[in-house]
């Protein structure tokens, strides 16, 4: 059976590390926002929606998907000490920054992910994400 490359641990780890490095201030993010990016990176339309949201400073998404693979890979990342976890936030550690820089240095590596994250930028804030998630509780 061929394996989806997004399910290879190292590939997914690299994707999360890049997300924190390129799209999150101080390399720090809530689980909810990581799921949002993970979900968005799967389709170009979703990336476009995020990039629009970043420009308008408002998320026009009602829901996004939660991926069990992300949960597993976050455990690996914390176990490898690339990330630390505290108060429900994941933060890039020194090793994690080093990994991100290695990936950035090799141009041929993960070109699409880098481009997508670059297009979105750091404009998707935790406030925007929690504003949407509060809606879920309200209903």
């Amino acid at each position, binding site marked *: *059976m*061929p*394996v989806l*490359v*997004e*399910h*290879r*641990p*190292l*590939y*997914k*780890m*690299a994707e999360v590390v890049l997300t924190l490095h390129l799209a999150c201030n101080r390399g720090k993010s809530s689980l909810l926002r990581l799921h949002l990016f993970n979900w968005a990176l799967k389709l170009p339309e979703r990336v476009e929606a995020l990039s629009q949201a970043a420009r308008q400073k408002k998320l026009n998404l009602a829901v996004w998907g939660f991926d*069990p*693979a992300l949960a*597993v*890979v976050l455990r*690996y990342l914390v*176990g*490898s*000490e*690339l990330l630390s976890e505290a108060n429900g936030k994941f933060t890039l550690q020194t*090793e994690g920054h*080093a*990994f991100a820089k*290695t*990936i950035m240095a*090799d141009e*041929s*590596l*993960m*070109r*699409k992910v880098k481009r997508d994250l670059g297009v979105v930028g750091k404009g998707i804030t935790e406030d925007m994400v929690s504003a949407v998630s509060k809606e879920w509780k309200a209903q």
Partner: protein
Amino acid sequence: MRFRAIRLHAATARGPHGFDFRFGEKLTIVRANNSSGKSTFFHTLLYAMGMEELTGARGTKSLQSAVREHFLDGQDAVGVVSSSVMLEIANVAGDIITLRRAINSTDRSDKLVEVFQGAWLTGPGSHAPPSAYYLHDPGSAQFASGFFRFLERWLGLELPKVARADGGETKLYLQDVFAAHAVEQKRGWTDYIGNAPYFGIANVRTRVVEYVLGLDVFDTAMEKGRLEQERQDIERRWAEAMGALRNEAAQLGFLPKDMPARAVRTFDASSLNVVKQLPEGPVSVGSYLNALRAEHRTLVAASETPTAVQTPELLARLSEEEDRSQRIVALHEVADLAQRGRVASRADYRRMIAELDSDIEKNESAAKLRKYGANLELTLASGQCPVCGQAVEDNLLADETSGRQMGLETNIDYLKAQRAMVVRQADGLQRELDEGAVTLAGLGRDLATIRQRLSAIRRDLGAGEQLTRSHLRAIVANEFELGRVEKFQELLEAFEESLPALAREFDANRKAHGELPKDNLSASDRAKVDKFVVLFRANATSFDYASVQAREININGESLLPTLGDMELRQVINAKVESSASDFVRLIWAYLIALYETATFQGVNGHHLDFLLFDEPAQHSMSELSMRALLQRLAGSRGLQSIVFASFENTESNFLAVTDNLTFDLITWDGKLVRPLTTRSVLD
């Protein structure tokens, strides 16, 4: 190459100092006790030829302070104001030049080597102005003003292109070739061709030996390149011919059938099959042409017998042509539908290829990440859990999926195979698309013609001319088509000759490619290496090599280095032999001398420079007997100039025992090497 003389000139406050020596034609022994300047002499000699990198340093750093800063005169240190070294050498053609290179100078760079024509040290030089060449700058091996480029040409060498360790290619460096000729004592006796400076050439020792022995491997590589170029040229011409054929045919509604898109090794003129799709089925160019000619004859004959307009006959023809028109319309519709389907499939294939490309890129990223991850010591890069250390599946959702999981490399191969398959199908589809377009265009043309004919018949029905309008139109159309098809027929005949010829050319090219030696060594190379083995073993025996039996030693066909079993033969620890280290040095002597002997053996056409410089070959308390055997071998080698620098254990008795009854020239001095000069030279 011959060394004729060397002169060091150092200007000091106490007058000109330095040294000035002549070398013999065959064996020259430079005898000097330790610390009396033997190494200074050797290093200065290499420096004079720009070869100081053999000692591991570049520029004047390779030289002892005695020739560049200060030397001892009795108890006093005498400062060197300026100094330079001159070296007189001759090449095979007997052309003599004198090199001058500054060591300590305010006005001349140590990267400059001046080349004076003629024997400026031993006789009158030519008064032609010297030429200036430069060393150690990028390109000194490549550009005309580079010294190594000059030296290479002057020595009559043409250094081959070799592979770099990083995958590129470069010219074999002259310094590396010199390393097979000059052995410096500190590093040189630790390995075969141990002095070879590292310039990024993969397996440099092997490349040097291949070159010195004049093996065909470089020629083979060149020939491979030439054949590949030729193959591409044939492929290009083939593709052009096919394109031209298809184009010309398409204009007439013809279609070449089953033509190989890429060059083939045999092509029979009879397999040139071009057809036209008619309502009655496909016809060949020949039968189409015959039909046109027959029609032409009928039409002409009919026009010569004037008849009144026959209405019933015209009506019959009208209905016949209408039937025909309808059949063509039906054919056209079917072909058009099929073509639309193909266009849609082509879009599908393109999308699939783009998706596969993206997948392959991502998977290759994943493969690279494993390497980077390993560099960062991520245990997951080697498939272990970072927390418990147990093996983990290379799949985050392994628990959710069943069946054997594909490894990353297999997965990449799998995707590439898939891509290749889709590309093949897309190519096939493209051919069908091209054919479909031709068929459609042909049917369109036929339809236009028949419509014109129909309208002419209809007009005839209302007219009464002798030669009907429809008849005239038919003749004009027939003649027009006939002319074009005849021209095309000529073109086809030209292809019938050119395509089989091109196929034969391709076949010859592939045959020549197949005949190139597979394992690098051609038959003549094999013979040279066999000769090399014999000479090497004989030398090892005569130098009392004792660690293993000489006949057990082989020369590996790939590395060209001595091997014992499968291993490169180096120092063998053997209790029966007194010093295994000195035994390895014997092996290096045997190897370098065998290299010279093989290269100059009749029919080998090697590229040895016919000299050997050995700096203190008696390493590791070498026995007097072995040293004597070495000097005897060197003195007895015809055509070889050897210069041996040796201290003879600082004793007269060792010197006498080793050189007894030997013919040689001696260079020696009392005390220090750098001393007041008693001679003058114009080049000082």
